[in-house]
């Protein structure tokens, strides 16, 4: 996980990266949400710390990816790797940061015994869908439904 081809170094996320993850999220979405990331990173570090990754360029965190292997979701009983959060600093997009993170994540999922990896992508975010398609992901028959309870 530590190799640094392309100048991108992927490593396990550490609690000292909470600030960097918050910063990237803010740069992407325009909202400062430290409480969200404190809670979520605490969760992922507890569940499967090797599926919480950051990518560094020149020692600075340029992207992050969070996931875990679970079984039993939506009737899918086999161990499945779920990629749940991906963020790449806008200044570092196009530098293979996301791809390197995904490669490391998939390698970890395989080591954990997963034979399938799944994620959910908002169709309005065409660049994200394209990213996963370039990695070999295909549209699945599992379709999300949503209903407001308001």
């Amino acid at each position, binding site marked *: 996980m530590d190799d640094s081809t392309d100048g991108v170094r992927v490593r*396990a996320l*550490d*609690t*000292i990266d*909470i*600030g960097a993850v918050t*910063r990237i999220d*803010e*740069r992407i979405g325009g909202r*400062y949400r*430290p409480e969200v990331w*404190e809670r979520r*990173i*605490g969760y992922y*570090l*507890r*569940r*499967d*710390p*090797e599926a*919480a990754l950051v990518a560094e360029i020149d020692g600075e965190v340029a992207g992050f990816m969070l996931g875990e292997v*679970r079984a039993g979701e939506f009737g899918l009983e086999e161990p499945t790797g779920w990629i749940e959060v991906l963020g790449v600093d806008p200044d570092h997009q196009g530098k293979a940061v996301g791809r390197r993170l995904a490669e490391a994540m998939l390698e*970890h999922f395989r*080591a*954990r*015994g997963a034979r399938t990896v799944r994620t959910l992508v908002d169709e309005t975010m065409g660049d994200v869908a394209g990213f996963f398609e370039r990695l070999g992901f295909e549209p699945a028959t599992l379709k999300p439904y949503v209903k407001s309870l308001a």
Partner: protein
Amino acid sequence: MSTREALLPARYHNAVERWRETFIPDFDYLLEQWPQHFPKDPQFKLCAYRECQVCPHIECGQDKGKPKHVRAATMAPEQAHHLFGAIRAQASTEFGSIQQHRLTLARATSEEEQVWVLRMMAEELRHGYQMLHLLVEDDWSAVAEDSADDLVEGILAMQTGSHILGAFNIDFDSFLDNVVFCALIDRVGKYQLTMQKISAYKPMAESMPQMLREEAFHLATGVVPLRRLMVSAAKDEIYVTTTDVQQTINKWLPRGLEMFGDERGGGTNVRYGLKPKKNAEAQSEYVAEVQKLIDDLNMRFIRARLPKLKLAEAEALRRRVIEEGETVQGIAPEDLVRMPHPEFFRRRGVPAFQMVGFAGERFQRFRDYAHHLRQHLPSAYLAGRDFRDYLESLRQVVHGQISAVEASRRMPTLRRVAGSCPCSRAVRWVRDEPLEPSQPQAGEPSQPQTADAVT
């Protein structure tokens, strides 16, 4: 990636369970709270986990490429001696931290943080169990005088004050100690576990991955509450101030730096394939990580105090306050936290007893330095025996009554004086006897040192 579980023989397993009843009396409460706070997480289990399929070959040192040792008997005597010391010391730290955390666990400011620390204590117990498993399942008689029974009893009988490393002999005074300890001292643990992941002793290498997974959460148990405390401080809530946080960092960071061992040492571990880095290299990487943590805490404070600031504006403000010493938009340098100088308040290693101040300034007079420490350390800690003993040793060094090396070696060591129950309080607070001239001195990196190879 898969793990297998192993249990200690029943009499040792039961001894650990009895120890747990004494030192984690809230264990049943943790199990009750588990589904609420950790839904879907596997229930805690007291056992040793061994990772399957670790690298079978020695990864550094003079025997790089050869098969890893599966028995201590095949190791060189000095190599086995170093390894044995590391395992025993690590076991001591795992059990020792639980004894510290329990003192102030009830003072947690939220139920969530309390349950997090409680889970962390249970996992530290499992880590100690893992180290006992290494000691019990192999034959260490070539390097250890004690039988397995005595080794287990000796470790389980240690109390705060008789543990092998200084950081585990200091009482907690508030819940701030719990979280700063997790943030700083467990971070040293992460370094040691990471380095030992490549150990030339295969059972050690197999023991590290699961411990490291659990350690990641232990760091969060410290860092996340610490970040929240900085927000409270920024909002002028009176319970915790940045001065409190700073003083608690000052209390623990020097002990954390010393856990890496003497800055000149570590070469033996690398040569024997037990760790990939010498002490100074690992320590300097740790310092850089703690600096990042401190920068992060300051940003959390600034953005909580001035929520309308944009990211770039907040970063610029932090630089002006920290680097230029300015007061900007009401935030003064003393409102933020800083990294103490790595030589501040040291009692082991190269800077031991050198009277270096918080910012790296040097003191000539004992009285001035004692006053300086008083300004930078928590008042509750100043009233304790650890600080009293440090100050007395320093006074003797300054007045030429003992050398800094002798003072460094004045660490309490275990002396069993009575009793056989592992949970008995059969240990007294004692000091090492004065060294014979022929004995190795602290700070000699070529000599085997317990503190040279431990978590």
